[in-house]
């Protein structure tokens, strides 16, 4: 029973990381109506930025994360402005999608060029060793607790931002009707840029937590979690912020439990099997709405 609880907690923790990544996916999808498949690689960029600041330059972990958020923000906004915006304005969603995949390869290979293919051994950004409960039988690592707390805090701040601020209201308007939003006086391009900035900065946070929990960093570190977070976003209902959170945690728990009780080799297959089932049974996800086609 205690070991189950242990696995459940590490599932929630892994799921919280997926959730933070999925938030970036889902916000960009909701507002810019595109899937940024390079989003997973922003995590890797964040990971290397923290590695460089914290380990190579010996800076404070917290400052390192802030710098990594800045780096990811610049890369996210820059990618949007240079690669996605011209294609979006040309009205070609498929070209944007393919370009996103191209950006993903570009970032991975740039990292390969700069940092090499040898995995870097990451030091946890959380120095707290954690809690020991139930007379030493239940040990929860510090990074696990921090991950869960951070992701909940991110969710709350985002919900407040979207529903309580002027810029957040503009995001809601743009996500529902871009043309009508312009007629309200909302600068749609500015709103999309802001969304990319938030999503990319969150990817750096996810990078810090991911590399602290699984401390090897390679140019491909972000690829798999990125795709799984995409599954999480679809599972929760793409475009929905609470949906991304729920989808992420559900996926993390299923992955860890499947790895423990079914098969460690099959756990990824089970995760992607869930995507197939969701698309078949409820294509709009857990919190997604049924969108009526209007004529």
């Amino acid at each position, binding site marked *: 029973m205690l070991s189950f609880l242990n696995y459940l907690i590490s599932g929630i923790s892994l799921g919280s990381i997926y959730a933070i990544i999925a938030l970036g996916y889902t916000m960009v999808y909701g507002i810019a109506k595109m899937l940024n498949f390079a989003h997973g690689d922003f995590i890797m960029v964040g990971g290397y930025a923290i590695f460089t600041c914290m380990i190579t330059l010996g800076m404070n972990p917290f400052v390192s994360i802030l710098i990594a958020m800045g780096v990811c923000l610049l890369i996210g906004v820059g990618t949007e402005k240079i690669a996605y915006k011209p294609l979006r304005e040309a009205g070609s969603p498929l070209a944007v999608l393919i370009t996103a995949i191209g950006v993903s390869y570009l970032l991975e290979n740039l990292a390969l060029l700069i940092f090499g293919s040898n995995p870097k051994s990451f030091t946890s950004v959380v120095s707290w060793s954690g809690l020991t409960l139930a007379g030493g039988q239940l040990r929860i690592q510090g990074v696990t607790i921090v991950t869960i707390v951070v992701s909940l805090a991110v969710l709350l701040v985002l919900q407040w931002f979207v529903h309580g601020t*002027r810029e957040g*209201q*503009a995001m*809601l*308007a743009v996500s*529902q*009707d871009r*043309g*009508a939003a*312009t*007629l*309200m*006086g*909302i*600068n*749609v391009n500015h709103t999309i840029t802001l969304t990319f900035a938030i999503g990319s900065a969150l990817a750096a946070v996810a990078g810090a937590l991911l590399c602290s929990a699984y401390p090897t960093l390679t140019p491909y570190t972000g690829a798999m979690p990125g795709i799984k977070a995409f599954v999480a976003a679809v599972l929760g209902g793409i475009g929905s912020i609470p949906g991304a959170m729920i989808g992420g945690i559900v996926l993390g728990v299923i992955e860890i439990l499947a790895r423990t009780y079914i098969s460690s080799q099959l756990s990824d297959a089970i995760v992607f099997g869930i995507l197939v089932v969701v698309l078949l049974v409820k294509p709009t996800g857990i919190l997604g*709405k049924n969108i009526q086609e209007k004529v």
Partner: protein
Amino acid sequence: MSLLEVNDLHVYYGVIQALKGISFHVEKGEIVALIGANGAGKTTTLHTLSGLLRAKQGTIRYRDTDITKMPGHKIVTLGMAQVPEGRRVFPDLTVLANLKMGAYTRRDKAEIEETLKMVYERFPRLEERKNQTAGTLSGGEQQMLAMGRALMSHPQLILMDEPSMGLSPLLVNEIFDIIQKINSDGTTVLLVEQNAKKALSVANRAYVMETGMISMEGKAQDLLENPQIQKAYLGE
């Protein structure tokens, strides 16, 4: 000097020319109707005025400012609002949030509250339903919400695109009454309508559009009595 002056406007969708050099003007305080069949370019004209589409040639002057190349979100700040075709309210937001969105460009909270009170007076049903999401409203209520939302920016000129579309005859009368009231409160109205009879009965002047050009213009009363118009647009 006219409030709105459009000169030789050419607009394309890709290679298809939707507007072939139209010119018209709207004076302060007027209701001007733009009538014509489906595909004549009426909605294209309004979209270009609001900056959702770009003109290839020609100029648009509003309140003595050239807005031909101005981004759509900036045009709103000059006091031009649009009630778009098909209402296009934000379906997942409440009625109140939709109205507040209309005041997005305004900063003074007290003034916004004042306008909100005025809108609720004009549309009491919106106040009754202020906490309901806009998607759950009836077509007529959504039309009122779209109008109220446009009024929230406190415009001098309001562009209305097919406000009577899909509404019952009773509601159509109500909507046109409201348009006249909005106008008598001091807001200039440019009205695009397929319901030519109704539009001409409330307008001061009107332009008739045909395949991207203006084919006729004049006082609304004269057009109502024009046998050619009666035959083509009024079904008489």
